[in-house]
């Protein structure tokens, strides 16, 4: 397509980085992570590295691998409804076949070769519909790939489908999708969280290897917590937003889901870096996040000795589920066992984050969603008058949550209210940034729950938007401060058929994803019963 060639220049793909076939070993000869050697209770392994190893040693073909994922996907999808769009199997298999052909020809198929990647539906894909979960974009096919998708494809990744989400990212349950409700793989009567619920559920149920989501106020981290997977929200500007349908431009970040910390790190590395099509994307160098990873076998008894961990006091106070608090306290103890010093820190501005976030996010969204007017693309309701064309197209095309947020944002930006709302919220944002900076001067990382509760029932908070908004308290401050945060499962609460996972949030300094991943990896590898596979797929996952 000619339009694309003027927009996106070809970039060299394979030379950008090389993956280790395994992690650094200090003393022992490396033991290669192979799925067949793991047991249900052993710590999670990097699926991406394992796939790469299997493909390069010809133990497995990309086609066989894709088939096994597709089989599980077809089996689980009717119960979960994670995907809004799935291409036919043949499309996926032909991509896998191409990778096998390249391996056979002795070519490097790329660090993500054969890796099935699910993509949230608000991230543009040229060969698949991209609706953002909205009726107004039903059937819309973008003429270009988002930069993140483009990079995944260039590195050998196979896009397996587009995942369900709350319309334009506005929601915390994925119930606000215009098309379907996604179920939590741990308990199908519960929500997977949101707005990236489809991407989280798909990784949790091993319908794909890794997935892309977006995080404006917690939309990667909260569903990661609900679904028991690893979710990474990078520093603002670390990943290009080009091709991500904007919700709140100053907060939006494309993030990664994986079943291990290493996988989210590898995926982040693939998509991170400056992009000349996003003026807010950072020129900061992208380090090889995995280069400091250690093999479990080579870990010392106190591998995180000297690390200063700050537990944010305001996140374990009243209003937070007791089961969640005890899981987080247990995680804190685990950090201490690993050699960290754990201290409670107070972020007095923490509670201001929620109102400030909602004012800023909704103000920006009221503007960002103006383009969905039915004139150039998307669903149009034909009318005799221009005003009716706008009104009818938008009132039929947009869902009630989206309309409510547009109205609130429009109100906050209106003449006479701007100073009281938008401007004050910006001032609060500055205060929050500063208080995080202070806390991160005294601590290497901060920890907190990723959500005040585990996954709740479908429909439970639908009638009470304020309760749902309050659930974002753990995550929104991080977006306001633009910091990176990693969520990984750290325990369970007793509920549902098999217990519900609880996510631990690690917050780091700007552009310090490498440290978060290193610490998260050690935490995950040393956690007892640290493997989170939902019962729905336990049989099919070794």
């Amino acid at each position, binding site marked *: *397509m*000619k*339009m694309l060639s*003027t*927009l996106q220049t070809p970039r060299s793909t394979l030379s950008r980085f090389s993956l280790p076939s395994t992690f650094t070993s200090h003393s022992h000869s490396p033991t290669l992570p192979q799925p067949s050697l793991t047991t249900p209770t052993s710590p999670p392994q990097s699926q991406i590295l394992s796939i790469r190893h299997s493909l390069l040693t010809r133990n497995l073909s990309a086609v066989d691998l894709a088939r096994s994922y597709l089989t599980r996907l077809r089996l689980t999808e009717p119960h979960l409804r994670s995907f809004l769009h799935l291409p036919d199997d043949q499309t996926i298999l032909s991509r896998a076949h191409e990778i096998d052909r390249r391996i056979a020809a002795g070519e490097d198929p790329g660090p993500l070769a054969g890796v099935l990647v699910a993509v949230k539906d*608000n*991230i*543009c894909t040229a060969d698949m519909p*991209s609706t*953002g979960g909205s009726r107004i*974009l039903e059937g*819309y*096919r*973008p*003429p*270009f790939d*988002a930069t993140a998708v483009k990079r995944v494809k260039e590195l050998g990744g196979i896009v397996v489908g587009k995942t369900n989400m709350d319309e334009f990212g506005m929601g915390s349950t994925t119930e606000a999708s215009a098309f379907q409700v996604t179920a939590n793989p741990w308990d199908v009567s519960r929500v997977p969280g949101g707005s990236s619920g489809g991407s989280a559920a798909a990784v949790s149920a091993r319908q794909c290897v890794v997935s892309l989501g977006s995080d404006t106020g917690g939309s990667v981290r909260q569903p990661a917590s609900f679904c028991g997977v690893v979710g990474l929200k990078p520093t603002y500007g670390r990943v290009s*937003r*080009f*091709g*991500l*349908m*904007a919700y*709140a*431009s*100053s907060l939006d970040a494309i993030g990664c889901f994986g079943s291990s910390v290493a996988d989210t790190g590898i995926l982040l590395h693939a998509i991170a870096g400056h992009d*000349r*099509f*996003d*003026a*807010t994307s950072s020129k900061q160098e992208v380090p090889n996040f995995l280069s400091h990873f250690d093999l479990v076998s080579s870990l010392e008894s106190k591998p995180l000795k000297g690390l200063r961990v700050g537990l944010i006091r305001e996140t374990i106070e009243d209003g937070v589920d007791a089961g969640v608090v005890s899981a987080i306290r247990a995680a804190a103890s685990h950090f201490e066992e690993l050699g960290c010093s754990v201290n409670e820190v107070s972020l007095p501005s923490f509670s201001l984050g929620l109102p400030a976030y909602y004012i800023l996010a909704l*103000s*920006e969204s*009221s*503007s960002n*969603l*103006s*383009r*969905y*007017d*039915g*004139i*150039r*693309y998307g669903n*149009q309701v*034909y*009318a*005799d*008058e*221009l005003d009716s*064309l*706008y009104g009818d197209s938008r009132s039929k095309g947009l869902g009630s949550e989206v309309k409510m947020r547009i109205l609130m944002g*429009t109100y906050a*930006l*209106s*003449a006479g209210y*701007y100073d009281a709302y*938008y401007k004050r919220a910006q001032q609060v944002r500055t205060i929050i940034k500063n208080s995080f900076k202070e806390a991160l001067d005294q601590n290497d990382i901060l920890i907190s729950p990723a959500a005040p509760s585990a996954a709740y029932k479908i429909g439970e908070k639908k009638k009470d938007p304020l309760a749902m908004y309050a659930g974002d308290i753990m995550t929104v401050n991080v977006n306001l401060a633009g910091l990176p945060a990693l969520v990984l499962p750290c325990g369970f609460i007793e509920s549902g058929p098999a217990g519900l996972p609880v996510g631990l949030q690690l917050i780091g300094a700007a552009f310090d994803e490498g440290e978060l991943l290193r610490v998260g990896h050690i935490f995950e590898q040393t956690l007892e019963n640290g493997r989170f596979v939902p019962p729905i797929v336990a049989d099919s996952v070794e």
Partner: protein
Amino acid sequence: MSYTSFRTFQLHSFLLKRRNGFFYSTTTKATTQSQTQTKLSASTQSKKLDKIPKDYEPVIGIETHVQLSTLTKAFCNCPYNYGSFPNTSICPVCMGLPGALPVLNSKVIEFAVKLGLALNCKLAFNSKFDRKQYFYPDLPKGYQISQFDVPIADSGYLDVDIPLEFGGGHKRFGITRVHMEEDAGKLLHTETGNYSQVDLNRAGVPLLEIVSEPDMRNGIEAAEYAAELQRLVRYLGVSNGNMQEGSLRCDVNVSVRPIGQSKFGTKVEIKNLNSFASMSRAIDFEISRQVLLHSQGQEDQIVQETRLWEEGTQRTITMRKKEGLADYRYFPEPDLPSVILCQEYVDGIQNSLPELPEEKRRRYEKMGLGMQDVLFLANDKNIAEFFDATLAKGADAKLVANWIMSDIAAFMKNEKLTINDIKLTPEELSELIASIKGGIISGKIGKEILFELLAKGGSVKEIIEKKDLVQIADPVEIEKMVDKVIAENPKQVEQFRGGKTKLQGFFAGQVMKVSKGKANPGLLNKILLEKLNSKS
């Protein structure tokens, strides 16, 4: 770009109801209703036009949009060429597709700084972009990227010389602000009026909006301000300033107040001004319309509205009344980083500025040229360049000015050519003037050579040589010719010597004819008189 690239892009046609006349763009015709309404009052007004009562003071301010001549649009890589086939110069960014982001073309900043400096403005070293929000089909994102509370330049002025025929004099008009923004697309209305189509070629083209202080008092001043602005952007090379193509668009605010009143009267905005002449006439019409209402005690009928200048009927008509103040819900554009200028960058631009029209006029004035010449030479960048290049070859300013103002200007006018089209070069004009001054050719021959140079080009020396046009300045040779003429006209010699001295001209003409126009006239006359008066 072929349409196949847009398999996902639907160019919907949509209906625009003619409600409140809101959707009339500058290309649509006025409603018949408004035409009949204004007809009666127009005839009474025209009588009063020339005698605007002295007890009212008109106040005029101008908002000008200048389209920048950057290679690509403000926030994407699309080129812009006026008149291209609709929707052939568009991309996901300027179409406002989901997920597309703006990236600033740095030339826009450079041009804004250039114009800001040229308008003697204060530059904002830390400015930003804002979103101005409203819905309209030619605005793909539902907001325009513009600058709100921190324009890149503000508090400047523009100096203008009012032409002599309009009273002359030097005026300084204040510049409130200069800010960067993007243009919208265009609506194409069908003949039937059933639906309209959107052309997004122009969407995202960079603009500078220049807002003046309300410092003008009549149509001429306003038109001269706008004309000076046009010269400025052309001198700076930031825009072609073409009004017909919409590269320079002026919206004029006009109000009238009784002399002595400090409060401004209700202002009316006039649109559809496609030339400086129409701007001047539209303002004067509007002033007299408002003054008439004031003088009849009906000033309450002057309402805040946008009026359209109708070229055909030479009057302004109501386009739309303002229903309260529009709330554009400005807020900082989060997709673009703030615009930070550093002193080095600004200094670099300052040092690269060309001589501006005002500086040029003052320089020409100091050379001793009259204001008429100054304005003629300085007002057209190309003529000024020609003039300066001729001076650079050592020619005398006044002589060059005379040649350009008279014969060269007349030739350009007759042949409908610009100074860039003529074959004469500044070097040759300088040579020509030098040849006359040095006595090599006569002024008369000089003119002949000039017209040949204008039409065909070539060099003065060549033409003189080829046509043997060198002036005869040898007294012996001229004497021979004089002798010949005197010998051939004994009767006239007798009459001359009998007191009819007017015949000198006849003899001079005859001698010149014999010399084929080449005789030095001074020498010729001197020798002729000597011969005629000596009764040998």
